């Protein structure tokens, strides 16, 4: 590239030193022009011609190099360099040829009108002539309009086949008794859940790819537990479960902060990495910062006889993004 720039500069200088043969082509001079922009110079620059030939040949070498690198199982970088350099040298050859080898011309072309009044009239007249002799125009136009609407409606109807009718909400596999397992299918014991970490839980024996499947599980110290009265029994031993799906835009929540130094730390919080909606796990998923319009849905938990975590019931709120009917009447 540097060499190319140097070559171009050299050519410019050569250009300036030698007066070039000129054929001034003067034609169609605008009547009111004080300057004639028309200009044509024929270069005859042998140095530039040599340079173009050299650039083309080096480009060809890089082109063959690409094939060679490919055959020798060269890596992405070498392939990119080979084909990139070939293209760059071809580009240089074209630009040098375009600027120093072929005739240089500036040409003034008249710009005609777009609208020619008689022509426009003629088009309108021709279209109108096609309706000559029709007496019941309004009837035909009206019937045509109705047929047109019917045609568009009929053509658009199959769009409804693209997907199912909307059901009440995003179903989740969670209902009373479903055991919480990790992404390898191992069930969570209540004793696995430690204060200060967060865990991702999935429903045992269900499709983990469903939107409502993923849960956030944390354990909070007693002082941070300020659940609404109706949810008192939802957090056995201070263990809470929330939908992992942010009620703002459907991303999985994967940031968790827990106070490590009491005098300066703020309370525990979940944060969604997409738009930073932040929820308080101790207060039933209340939004404390960010754009989400709803609280994070909480799942009631229970601990079975063997100490495994299980859902104590379904979600009472819709999981996932908001829509018209997302705030269904609380059951």
């Amino acid at each position, binding site marked *: 590239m540097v060499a190319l720039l140097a070559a171009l500069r050299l050519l410019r200088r050569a250009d300036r030193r*030698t*007066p*070039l043969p000129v054929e*001034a082509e003067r034609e169609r001079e605008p009547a*009111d022009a*004080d300057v*004639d*922009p028309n*200009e044509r110079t024929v270069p005859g620059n042998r140095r530039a011609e040599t340079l173009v030939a050299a650039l083309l040949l080096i480009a060809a070498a890089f082109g063959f190099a690409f094939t060679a690198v490919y055959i020798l*199982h060269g890596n*992405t*970088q070498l*392939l*990119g*360099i080979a084909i990139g350099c070939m293209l*760059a040298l*071809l*580009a240089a050859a*074209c630009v040098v*040829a*375009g*600027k120093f080898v*072929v*005739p*240089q011309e500036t*040409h*003034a*072309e008249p*710009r005609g*009108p*777009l*609208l020619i009044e008689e022509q426009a009239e003629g088009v309108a007249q021709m279209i109108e002539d096609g309706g000559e002799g029709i007496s019941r125009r309004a009837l035909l136009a009206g019937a045509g309009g109705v047929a047109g609407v019917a045609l568009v409606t009929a053509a658009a109807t199959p769009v*409804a086949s693209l*997907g*199912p009718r*909307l059901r009440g909400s995003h179903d989740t596999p969670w209902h009373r008794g479903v055991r919480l397992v990790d*992404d390898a299918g191992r069930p969570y014991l209540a004793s696995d859940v430690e204060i200060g970490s967060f865990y991702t839980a999935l429903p045992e024996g269900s499709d*983990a*790819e*469903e*939107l409502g*499947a993923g849960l956030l599980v944390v354990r909070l110290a007693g002082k941070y537990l300020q659940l609404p009265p109706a949810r008192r029994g939802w957090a056995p031993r201070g263990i809470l479960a929330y939908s992992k*799906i942010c009620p*703002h835009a*459907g*991303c*999985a929540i*994967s940031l968790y902060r827990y106070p490590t130094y009491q005098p300066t730390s703020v309370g525990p919080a979940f944060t969604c*990495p*997409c738009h930073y*909606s932040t929820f308080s796990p101790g207060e039933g998923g209340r939004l404390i910062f960010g*754009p989400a*319009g709803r609280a994070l849905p909480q799942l009631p938990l229970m601990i079975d006889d063997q100490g495994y975590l299980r859902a104590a019931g379904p979600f009472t709120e819709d999981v*996932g*993004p*908001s*829509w*018209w*009917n997302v*705030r269904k009447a609380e059951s």
Partner: protein
Amino acid sequence: MNLVGRMLHRRLVRVVRWNEQRVGAAKGIKAALRYVFPDHWSFLLGEIALYSFIVLVGTGIFLTLYYIPGDSQVIYHGSYAPLAGQKMSDAYRTVLNLSFNVPAGLLMRQVHHWAADVFVASIVLHLCRIFFTGAYRKPRDLNYFIGLLMLMLAILEGFAGYSLVDDLLSGMGLAIAYSVAFSIPFIGAQLGYLVWDGPFPGSSSFLPRLEIVHVLLLPAALAVLITIHLAMIMRQHHSQFPGPGRRERNVVGTPMWPAYALRSLGLLLAVAAVLFLIGGLIQINPIWQWGPYHPYLSENGAQPDWYIGWLIGALRLMPNLEPAIGNHTIIPNPFWGGALFPLVVFGVMFAWPSIERRFTGDHRRHDLLDRPRDHPIRTAIGAAFLSWVVIIFAVGSTDRLFFRLNISYDAQIHFWRIGVWVLPIVIFFITRSACRSLAASDAHPLRAWQGSVVRRGAGGGVEILAHSADVVEAPVSEAPVGTVPGEESD
């Protein structure tokens, strides 16, 4: 003429005659070869977009021969060891395979991804040039609308493209897109169900749908619109900046054959060269680092491709407004940033030519471009509007500033919720006064020029037109001429 020259000439004539006997296009070919391109560097931005599109089509054809839009979950046993044994979709597996096992596959994928970023960037810069020089005025308003439409399709096309991979990042993007669809008042949820064929992440027909949109429907629409865009430019001829001998009624520049054709071919090759060099040397979207998508996983600190950044910023900046009446949610929150904001941005841009006509009363045809400084109000409005969008775009990376420089995320959001309205107003006034003083001094905005204005005259001599001391009168754009009665008004 020597012997070889005569032989070549005879052969060329034979080829042209062969074509004429069948097509009879000599008149059109001559006009095309003489077609004049005015010279200005800013006119190349649109060409860069066109050439990026060509590279996109070429590399895209290669990629589509390997990609399988399958959502069935498989266990990875491919050559990239860190992901061995992981559950992933067939789609993601085929892209990993393309990246690691197909010779030159990663090169093609990276060039394709870079080309998409350059494609949208050059369209946006081209749009800025069109706006600030007033090139959108009659007769080019229609073509300006087509350009805006192409920008919308290009953004959609890019989003569809990186969503196909089904890596963690693209799955998160689709989850957001699904939520934005759901947020459209009243009908959004049903619309989301139609597009995804059921609840997110959709049925097994979703990825094939996305693929056909990405590899056929949108590219075909873009190709048709590009053709119309170029055909209209040829019909109207290029606009040009005012200059010696340049009038409303002519177009001065380099004819297509041979100099411009060679230079433009050079630009095509240069665009391709840059894309292949960075595609080979600079890693982009290392999908194996993100891992496969599952709805219960997400990547922290993830950033989308740059042309989606303005929407992320708007979604992040918006307060948690979600009006509901009783149990019914009227406007779910993602609507504001994800749907209303882009609608407003494009709405304003579509409406601008008629807004300007209403305020200036200027219904004439314009073929000479304005210098931005000569229309301080337009330039200031454009700069303010652009800064509004750019601020919101920048808000999309507030988390990066938080992680790198430890500037409180909350504080940044609170600051910009006000700043996004105040700063554009400040920029409006700064731009307006800058335009006025530039117009008064006639200095170059970046380098107040020193020296002389010269022109190479016939015979290689140099003709001095003006010195910096006695600044030339700016080549003021003459009053537009309606060549035929009726041309001047709508």
